[in-house]
């Protein structure tokens, strides 16, 4: 690691003030940033520890939940309001990492995870536009079975690694951020970026902006939700494909549905085409398959990850079948 200074922020305003220092980084649980610093992929001159900021999980006046960015992943997954009302979120969190890491990792840090693309990590031996803009990408023609099938660019085919964020995409969460220009909110769907020609930028955060909370709007009273993750081993691995879904049924029809895919794009991939194809239709296997077709028609797999298209299709259908059976 290159040398850096360390300070604990006393509140969000203090954090933002300290965060404007040259090459400062906010530090949460450290489960990603410390590793990246050890590999010298991140070289902050100053770390501002924000784990002392809000860890609250509180009801909002609108009837939703406001989760402080410093809340640990475990604390969110075990919170009874989350388990009873936002099952997809609790399920997605416990699908990620290990218990040890979930005890350390914060909600804000989870949103800001960097990709696990092996070429991004291979500082010495590989080209990577995310690490070094303009350098080139060795993943596009390399070992890329884990890489993107949606939204990639000639500059970057990396995927976002988070499980939690896939759930948040289906919940239409709102990200609260604070910077030197003041506080603002960002719709979750707009928070992460597609790579385009700037794969070094993962999110729309301005330099020095801090994530302070994630807000969950209330779900309809009959809504059911689920998360399913497919990976190379049974546990403690990143997703090849994952599916988060929220379904509201009425009289055997899918009144409303929200679907997001993980492991397939540079950001949690909201499957809006599948949603549109399914909304209002009877909950039947053919309708699920056609919804999956509608989304996956737009997939652009690489040489060695075409299997993800079939895998995503099956997983979408399985999750929808399970949810509509429960909700009927």
């Amino acid at each position: 690691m290159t040398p850096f200074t360390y300070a604990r922020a006393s509140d969000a305003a203090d954090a933002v003030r300290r965060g404007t220092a040259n090459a400062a980084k906010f530090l949460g649980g450290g489960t990603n940033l410390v590793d990246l610093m050890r590999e010298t992929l991140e070289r902050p001159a100053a770390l501002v520890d924000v784990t002392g900021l809000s860890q609250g999980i509180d009801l909002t006046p609108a009837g939703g939940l406001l989760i402080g960015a410093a809340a640990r992943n475990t604390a969110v997954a075990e919170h009874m309001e989350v388990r009873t009302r936002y099952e997809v979120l609790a399920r997605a969190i416990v699908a990620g990492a290990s218990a040890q890491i979930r005890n350390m990792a914060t909600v804000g840090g989870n949103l800001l995870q960097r990709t696990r693309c092996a070429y991004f990590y291979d500082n010495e031996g590989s080209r990577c536009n995310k690490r070094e803009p303009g350098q080139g990408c060795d993943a596009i023609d390399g070992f890329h079975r884990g890489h993107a099938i949606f939204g990639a660019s000639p500059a970057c085919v990396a995927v976002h690694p988070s499980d939690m964020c896939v759930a948040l995409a289906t919940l239409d969460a709102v990200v609260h951020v604070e910077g030197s220009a003041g506080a603002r909110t960002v719709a979750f769907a707009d928070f992460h970026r597609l790579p385009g020609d700037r794969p070094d930028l993962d999110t729309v955060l301005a330099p020095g902006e801090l994530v302070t909370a994630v807000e969950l709007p209330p779900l309809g009273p009959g809504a059911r939700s689920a998360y399913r993750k497919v990976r190379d081993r049974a546990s403690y691995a990143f997703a090849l494909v994952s599916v988060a879904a929220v379904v509201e049924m009425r009289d055997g029809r899918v009144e409303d549905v929200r679907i997001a895919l993980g492991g397939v794009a540079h950001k949690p991939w909201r499957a809006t085409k599948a949603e549109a194809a399914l909304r209002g239709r009877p909950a039947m296997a053919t309708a699920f398959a056609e919804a999956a077709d509608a989304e996956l028609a737009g997939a652009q797999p690489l040489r060695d990850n075409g299997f993800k298209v079939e895998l995503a299709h099956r997983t979408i259908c399985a999750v929808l079948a399970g949810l509509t059976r429960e909700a009927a």
Partner: protein
Amino acid sequence: MSIFVNGQAVACPDDPRVSLLDLVRERLQLHGTKKGCDQGACGACTVLVDGQRMLSCLALAVQYDGRAVTTIEGIGQQGHLHPLQQAFVEHDGFQCGYCTPGQVCAAVAMLDEVKRGVPSYVSGDITATGIVPTREELQERMSGNLCRCGAYNGILDAIAEQLEEAAK
């Protein structure tokens, strides 16, 4: 500024680059905690912080000022083994032993999580607070600790026996 390691106050390192793992191993000469991958992939460095299991390799020591850290040396000592350590011995829960301190620390905290009702990926009803610690549950909950000797069956047998003992 101090960190309390196994009840003893230890000064926070001046250099913020020092990990909690290097603090206990290199500065306190507590060599029970192991450095496996040093990147959060193996669980060998698992310690307890205020009773919760964490990876000391990904923890900057300065972040743990004022916190209570328990390493394997704080869980059991030669001649005074923790019952779970004794169970590991009796059930062949290790071969080379390198992952064992991390496995034992993780298992001690895991049993508390089960008691607390923390859900896991394989939990059926996510809202249930009474966790039934099936073999599948134990496997999932211990999946953050790798054992390259493959002593997993012995490890699970040892933990399952502890659960039975605790239920008596």
